[in-house]
């Protein structure tokens, strides 16, 4: 076995289960013996992505592939797409509804945090079709 692959299906519109997939990933990384600080980076990034999928895209699918060198995450959704990635990457910018904000989400920190906690992030998006975010967290401590 050269890598460990796992897929999580994210339910849309249900905040009560948002975060479950990143919690599961955390357990996987712990049982593989990944460094706690690295685990934290990967799970925060994935948590933010997971929340975004619930808020904006009615859920989606997250594929994670773990090797001794890196944690590779693919987040795919069939949501509305991101019209302006640069604007979406601005801290504090959010298109979340008031309802969502009342629940304590939608602070406009999702994408910036995902970038902050990962070593590589690439967003591919198409209006009306969906968004794919690829993230890599290196597992070496340097």
């Amino acid at each position: 076995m050269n890598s460990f692959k796992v897929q999580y299906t994210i339910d849309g519109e249900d905040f009560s289960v948002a975060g479950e997939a990143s919690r599961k990933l955390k357990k996987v990384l712990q049982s593989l013996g990944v460094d706690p600080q690295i685990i934290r980076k990967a799970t925060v990034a994935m948590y933010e992505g997971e929340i975004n999928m619930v808020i904006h895209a009615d859920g989606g699918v997250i594929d994670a592939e773990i090797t001794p060198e890196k944690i590779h995450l693919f987040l795919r959704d069939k949501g509305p797409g991101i019209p302006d990635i640069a604007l979406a990457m601005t801290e504090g910018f959010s298109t979340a509804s008031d309802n969502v904000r009342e629940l304590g989400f939608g602070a406009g920190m999702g994408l910036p945090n995902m970038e902050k906690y990962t070593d590589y992030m690439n967003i591919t998006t198409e209006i009306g079709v969906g968004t794919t975010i690829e993230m890599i967290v290196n597992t070496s401590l340097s």
Partner: protein
Amino acid sequence: MDKIIHSVTLDTDKCKGCTNCIKMCPTQAIRVRKNKAKIIKELCIDCGECIRVCPYHAKKAVTDSFDMINNYKYKIALPAPAFYGQFDKATKIESILHALIKAGFDDVFEVAYAAQLITKRTKELIASGELETPIINSACPAVVNLISTKYPSLLNNVIPLISPMNLAAIMARKIAEEKTPYKGSEIGIFFITPCAAKATCTKFPLGLPESVIDGAFSFKDMYLKVVPHLNDKECEQDLSKAGFKGVCWANCGGEVVSLELDNYIAVDGIHNVIHVLEEIENDKLSDVEYVEALACTGGCVGGPLAVENNFVAQTRVKKMAKTARGNGEAPEFDMDLVWQTPIKIRKQRNLDDDMFVAMEKLAKIDEIYDRLPKLDCGSCGSPSCRALAEDIVRGYSKESDCIIKFKEKIALFANEMLDGSDNVE
């Protein structure tokens, strides 16, 4: 690996092998094997949830025998502030301290008084901006154990100061050596503890190279020794020094009150603490300045070794804090309170040190889990089907430990027998 010592232990004679404790343990540290509970030492955080939940009182916190005070010439009691809330006959702190003297001690030193100095140093540390936010308190050893076991990435958020209990012991010893002719091993210092985690800390203190306390007696054990001597009217000695800011540490939220903070979360109950730590790990609470997290509901008044109902005790302590004699200012004491030894991250329970082997084991766990009924009934002795799958892969259990799988097997076997008998006819 360092040996991990716990106060929480099992009385195997009393254990019936039921599954109450395995289901309630916040770190899934208990299994039932051969009809007896077994504690996985690497995972136990000494929170005492199992002591609370065991219907047969088979889970115990090991504390010391009161007789041991006779080995010392000068005996000092260190009551935790939560102890003040245990007595319906006492309305004054002074009468409880007085009763402790009558019960056999030569002097008392209030942990609440030492807490006032910890409060001051904590304030200074918060102001220095050196710690990662939210800052997490370190007064509850079960919470610190939880962090070093399950949330090691948050250790940098924890206040690196010794506990009020240990500071009280160090101060009490110094004062005794100055005002009495006794020295060193002639002086015995005894903490009166609400919980298992602090009892462990008297032997293996967090942040100190060695123990500074000679023994720990539980609230339960001391209760009966103190009650006969309680008398609110006859307290000629002036023993009480602690003020509001120290005494209120007994309740959850007391620490932040004495720190005079506005932007904080005060959370009690180990399962609630876990939720808050998860939030911190997910970076959701970075705008919060301080988290006071205590393992027991209500704070130390809710300790598993307490006698009184924690809500009753909370109210009593609140009243007593308001009428406490001291002014609440930090006592003068020249000592660096910062941890002398860092808190170690407990070895994470990975499946294998070789990540490729660990991956194979993880795949195997998923495969076994798929076959299990997912009822999480606990009858197999593991806390959940997922935990059983992991225990099987780790070599501690087998699939037939699952009662449902076992039943299926028997049914299959019985059917085969029936088919066989048909053929005979």
